[in-house]
């Protein structure tokens, strides 16, 4: 197999790399990362993001951005089907992308899950997207008070927090893969507040 590896397989053409480079649009990309989301990497990325946005005078957008980013990244860390062992711990892999536009930022995350995980996420997201601020607040409280499911490291509150901080409804897309797997992606829009 290795011997059959041709040169042009390895040396991407200019247009291939460019299409990857511009895949988020040619907006200002603040951050693009694909790979294993270990806690160390997550901290570096989150801090980098916060420093990039620190010209925001009231820090409001920065705080929201930081929070949404951590929740998205920790979801990948915990729930991605693409998992590797890093320093003795099993960690999920995925992709995160943050772009800046004139009046807002977009945060996009993607990872592989089992089909049924997508379906239950879809149901959650649809429910959250229909709620107003007051409903989200009391739903969050209810979840905080609820007993945890055995073995679940998350609180079931991450998506609610994202929904409360985001400026538009949460976008969730699915691309079906083989073996009952799906590639899912979250789309979050955050308006700049001044």
């Amino acid at each position: 197999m290795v011997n059959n590896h041709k040169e042009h397989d390895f040396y991407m053409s200019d247009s291939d790399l460019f299409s990857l480079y511009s895949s988020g649009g040619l907006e200002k990309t603040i951050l693009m990362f694909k790979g294993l989301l270990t806690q160390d990497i997550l901290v570096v990325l989150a801090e980098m993001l916060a420093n990039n946005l620190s010209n925001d005078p009231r820090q409001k957008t920065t705080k929201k951005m930081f929070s949404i980013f951590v929740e998205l990244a920790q979801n990948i860390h915990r729930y991605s089907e693409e998992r590797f062992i890093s320093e003795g711990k099993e960690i999920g892999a995925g992709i995160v992308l943050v772009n800046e536009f004139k009046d807002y930022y977009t945060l996009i995350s993607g990872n592989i899950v089992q089909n049924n995980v997508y379906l239950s996420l879809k149901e959650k997201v649809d429910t959250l997207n229909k709620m107003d601020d007051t409903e989200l607040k009391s739903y969050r409280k209810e979840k905080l008070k609820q007993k945890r499911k055995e073995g679940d490291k998350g609180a079931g509150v991450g998506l609610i927090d994202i929904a409360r901080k985001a400026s538009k409804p949460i976008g969730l897309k699915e691309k079906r893969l083989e073996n009952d797997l799906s590639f899912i992606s979250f789309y979050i829009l955050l308006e700049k507040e001044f």
Partner: protein
Amino acid sequence: MENLYIEGSKFTMEVNYNAETNLCIMKGNSYPEDAINFFEPLNEWLEQYIEEINKPLTMEIQLYYLNSSSSKCFMDIFDILDEYQEDGGSVLVKWFYERNDDEIREAGEELLEDMSFKFEYIEIPESSLYEA
């Protein structure tokens, strides 16, 4: 009983629980990958304090950022303190927040609003964010 000290990191709080001064301090960021695991010794310490020491307890919390699973763990802590108060104990929680930091102030309000013990919100000047 022994005091509990945990050194802070970029993503975990500095913890200083003292059974002689009856003061529990938590300070910094809280977004560990496994919040339950981080908070477990804190809850165990509190349970032991209530059983063995049983004095008026003050808790001071000064956060810059907390993730959703840490919020849930704070709810667990406050539930323990709530029960202590209802069983005749005495608890005061001081929730610090930096000026203009509505996120942290609101996070505290949503966690503390129904609790039976005393709590106060204390505004402090802004510092450099995220550097605990």
